[in-house]
């Protein structure tokens, strides 16, 4: 049944000059499942997410998102997913409601449905009473919830989450995962997420793929991964698969700008 494979990646390769960031990666995600994509820093997670979400062209390989090829039909592919980026991507100078409205227009939500859907989505994440607050005044957790609400506005079949709980306190993290699990269960939404918190992945993921140095080194349910590695926790299994060495990443201009932005209080 390929019909039910909502995300299909086949032999994906991405090279930057002579560096193979993603090296022959294949996986499939069934509809309504929560798929965790784990790996150390620099393993190729973000590059893979970028290729899946149409912002980076693969060097080789094919992708299908709900049946659409992001390279050949980028607009149809983009309509099929919602995404919560690693960094906040809200316009802080706009209110929560205005951020939502802008998204609705960008995604072609019919005018007559906009107000209703915005209300439903904001109520879902508990931000309806803050709809007139400026996004820049929101806490990290509130921003995340707003981004999740926004990603749901165009009722996508797939939700991408790139480290959605980074920098959040445990209470907020639990909330965020509750929303996401509800979505997968009740709306049959397919969720693809990355995280560094192994306990979260263990708790919420139906299936996990671990990527290291551009290759997938293990796949299966959290239970399978633990059993195969003879480990008590997913974290132990992760470390036995990927080793103890700490991966260094060079700071890109983006990281530097991020630091500056924090200094200027823009994020």
């Amino acid at each position, binding site marked *: 049944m390929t019909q039910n494979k909502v995300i299909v990646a086949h032999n994906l390769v991405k090279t930057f000059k002579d560096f193979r960031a993603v090296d022959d990666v294949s996986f499939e995600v069934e509809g309504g499942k929560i798929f965790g994509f784990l790996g150390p820093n620099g393993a190729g997670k973000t590059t893979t997410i970028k290729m899946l979400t149409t912002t980076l062209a693969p060097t080789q390989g094919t992708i299908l998102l709900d049946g659409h090829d992001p390279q050949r039909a980028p607009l149809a592919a983009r309509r099929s997913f919602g995404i919560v980026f690693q960094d906040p991507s809200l316009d802080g100078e706009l209110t929560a409601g205005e951020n939502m409205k802008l998204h609705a*227009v*960008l995604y072609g939500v019919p005018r007559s449905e906009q107000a209703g859907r915005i209300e439903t989505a904001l109520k879902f994440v508990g931000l309806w009473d803050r709809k007139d607050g400026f996004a820049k005044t929101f806490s990290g957790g509130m921003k995340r919830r707003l981004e999740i609400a926004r990603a749901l506005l165009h009722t996508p079949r797939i939700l991408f989450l790139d480290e959605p709980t980074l920098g959040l306190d445990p209470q907020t993290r639990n909330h965020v995962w509750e929303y996401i699990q509800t979505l997968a269960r009740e709306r049959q939404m397919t969720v693809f997420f990355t995280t560094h918190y192994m306990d979260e992945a263990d708790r919420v993921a139906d299936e996990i793929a671990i990527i290291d140095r551009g290759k997938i080194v293990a796949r299966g349910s959290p239970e399978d991964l633990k059993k195969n590695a003879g480990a008590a926790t997913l974290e132990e299994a992760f470390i036995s698969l990927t080793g103890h060495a700490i991966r260094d990443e060079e700071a890109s*201009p983006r990281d530097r*700008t991020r630091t500056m932005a924090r200094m200027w209080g823009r*994020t």
Partner: protein
Amino acid sequence: MSIIYILWLRQLKRYRRSRARIFASLAQPLLFLFAIGFGFGPTYQKAGNGNYIQFLVPGIVAMAVLFSAVFSGIEILWDRQFGFLKETLVAPVPRIYIVLGRTLGAATVAMIQGLVVFTVCLLAGFHIQNYGLLPVAAAFMFLIAMLFTAFGTTIGSLVEDMQAFPLIMNFLVMPMFFFSGALFPVKDLGAILNGVLRLNPLTYGVDGLRGALTHEFVFGIGPDFVLLGLATAILLVVGNYFFSKIEV
């Protein structure tokens, strides 16, 4: 259409809400008006060139539009690194709509800035020679605004690092302003400087604006309009091209 409109509206809302920015970006042109205008005015008059404020004001208005437009274009740098740009780039919308919405919004903001500075100049004693030509002056302002928003978009799409911002201001934008005839008359310059000015598209914007407001054309309204329009069209295409190449 609704996509272009909502992105245009976003720029205007952002502008209205950032009072500090409005204030800061008005300070510089007004400083030039008062310090240079009233400072050099008597010398200019003694040299037999007439009233310096009458000469300078179109240049100052062009300056306000120029800086505001470039700055808005470069805002992409901010939007790009963490903010909002990713949200627009993964939206199921051809990028040209995004560029058009942004550019029109930023150019409108630059126009407003120019009009505010112009109003202050009127209060400071500037005389409009021919009210009938005001729409022509507005058209020139709009072209300058579009041209330099597109220029800013190009820079913002090519450069990844915020550290480059002072470099861009000091090595591209300031020289473009100084070598545009905004501050001094073009007609008495030596061959080299004259050549430099003629290569600068802002020169034709300043000349057109000055001509429309005070009848002091050097190149004439037709050539100004054609050359400025051509430069604007080219930069819009270039800006759109580089914006469409952004990978986030």
